[in-house]
């Protein structure tokens, strides 16, 4: 077990290094730097600026320096506004994380409940209704859903003000972020629940006279949730990176919208900072969900 964990951690670190490498060279390959653009600056000013942020050195040297600073926990300052990158990330991530976390929790809870209801009422009307809406929801991109919600609830019905900073402004972004994963979890739970309900040990439990409630919650659900747990890692990653469009539509200044902005601005340190932060978050979540998966399902051999 320990060997497996160490191996996975090693690969996670390798992945992170690769992401840093790709991002650094990719962003340097985009024509234009952070300082050309806005107002035309004189050559002397450009030279001083480039020297100050050591942009005049070869890319490989810059990369080495960046990695050295990174290992000391220093993400540098934004080339655009001079603010500390890690502080900016922390502030904007707080917003994204709040919405994303609520969306993830809602998706998991409702997905499991709806999936179980569908499986237990197989081919009856609750099953058909749930499957119909789940199929429809998996065909709807989050930005279409978000814009449609905005149209219906803010413009047509005027239930929710378009721009507001109070708690109810989270309702629409959370719905638009959580619907797709919720539908996916519903389908996942339904299939694996049906699978489990057909197993021999469920019949044995029923034959022993175990109550229906106990059969579902103690015997069936625990085993049916294994595929759902593996999906939680990729889902969290998807919700976090996918939030950038939803954030844009609802004009929430989260991390996602920062990421797109800093790419168009060629704000090198911000690009690196946000990429590393989001990527490490995703890599860690994936690693954890993989390990948890192995722990809770003893049938899976460690390899």
């Amino acid at each position, binding site marked *: 077990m320990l060997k497996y964990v160490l191996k996975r951690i090693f690969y996670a670190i*390798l992945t992170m290094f*690769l*992401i840093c490498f790709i991002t650094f060279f*990719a962003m340097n390959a985009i024509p234009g730097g952070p300082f050309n653009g806005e107002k035309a600056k004189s050559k002397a000013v450009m030279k001083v600026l480039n020297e100050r942020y050591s942009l005049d050195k070869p890319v490989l040297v810059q990369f080495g320096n960046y990695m050295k600073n990174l290992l000391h926990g220093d993400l540098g300052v934004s080339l655009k506004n001079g603010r500390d990158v890690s502080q900016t990330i922390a502030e904007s991530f707080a917003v994204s994380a709040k919405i994303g976390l609520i969306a993830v929790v809602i998706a998991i809870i409702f997905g499991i409940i709806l999936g179980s209801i569908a499986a237990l009422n197989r081919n009856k009307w609750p099953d058909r209704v749930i499957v119909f809406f789940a199929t429809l929801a998996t*065909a709807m*991109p989050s930005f279409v859903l978000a814009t449609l919600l905005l*149209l219906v609830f803010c413009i047509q019905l005027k239930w929710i003000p378009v721009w507001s900073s109070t708690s109810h402004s989270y309702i629409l972004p959370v719905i638009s972020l959580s619907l797709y994963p919720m539908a996916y979890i519903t389908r996942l739970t339904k299939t694996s629940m049906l699978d489990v309900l057909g197993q021999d040990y469920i019949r044995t439990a029923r034959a022993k006279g175990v109550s229906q409630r106990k059969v579902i919650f103690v015997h069936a659900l625990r085993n049916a949730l294994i595929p759902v747990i593996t999906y939680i890692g990729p889902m969290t990653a998807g919700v976090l990176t996918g939030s950038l*469009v939803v954030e844009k539509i609802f004009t929430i200044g989260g991390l996602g919208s920062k*990421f797109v902005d800093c790419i168009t601005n060629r704000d090198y340190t911000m690009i690196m900072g946000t*990429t590393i932060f989001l990527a490490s978050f995703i890599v860690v979540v994936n690693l954890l969900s993989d390990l948890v998966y192995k722990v809770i399902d003893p049938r899976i051999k460690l390899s």
Partner: protein
Amino acid sequence: MDTARKNPDMPLPKKNPLSLQLDLSKFEKATDEEKRQQDVMSESTTFLKDGFRKLMKNPLAVGSIIVLLAIILMMIVVPHIVPYTYSGIIKVEGVKDPGAKNLMPFEYSEMEKAYMAKGGKIFPHIMGTDELSRDYFVRVVYGTRVSFLVGVFASVIVVIIGVLYGSISGYFGGRVDMIMMRIVDIIYSLPDLLVIILLSVVFRETLDFSKVPMLQKLGANMISMFLVFGLLYWVGMARLVRGQILTIKENEYVLAARAIGAKPKRIIWNHILPNCISVIIISAALEIPSAIFTESYLSFIGLGVALPMPSLGSLASDARSGLQSYPLKLVFPAVMIILIVLSFNLLGDGLRDAFDPKLRK
């Protein structure tokens, strides 16, 4: 009962260890009726025929095939019938008509009304017009074309790379497999949307396609999108194909082919791949909607196809600015995306039910 004991007089036939020692006198000839029972009742069928028959029995799959065919037909036919273009302002008698902007469906502008009063014929604006006086129906059809093509091509790229990579890795196994799969693992764990956004910016800005005539027409954005799909999305397919091949290559017929001296290429191509074709088809069909999703997503944040070429994502994005007054402009592309993705999803599910050997009963 043993015959030998019943008739002790009958001489026992010579013992032959390989003979069954059947006594022919104990058999009787089959009647015609019994013979007829042995006839094969159902037609002989191939794997594909059988799967196709099953697919046709699934109403959801048939429905989605009909919807997809209708959409494809619309993509091909409409640009030839409707006299408007996706990028040009509507013209009345060769004169540009700036008054024809933001019309509702089947509404006509002042100039068009005047022309129709004179007895001229105007093709109706089935979905109205946009804020630059362009016919919206044609734009939606072209947007559908772009999104559809991106989806299909991305899926083709994924299948080619994924099958090649996966079959090599799975067939050769050992150290080759380990190294190749570690690469796949790493690409798999990259946060795809971040990398896609970054790479599509990089490719769009750095690659120059103006010299290559075929590619130039597609536009740098489109090509960079295909490149990104080709670089990132094949890993799922490669894993799938490898897993299939690992089990199939243990079969005796592969061993037999190898014993005869068939080369790896021939074994993979003729003996192994036909046996995992169903899995490949199913996952290729499910790859299309996910590519359409990504494309519309990229177009929505302005990293997709280049203007004035529309895609469903960019149309939905443009519609946001006039959402309050012209909500229909969002509804049309949104319905189109949902319809396409839904049909492909249902078709993929239907294909899985029909072709997946594991689900066979």
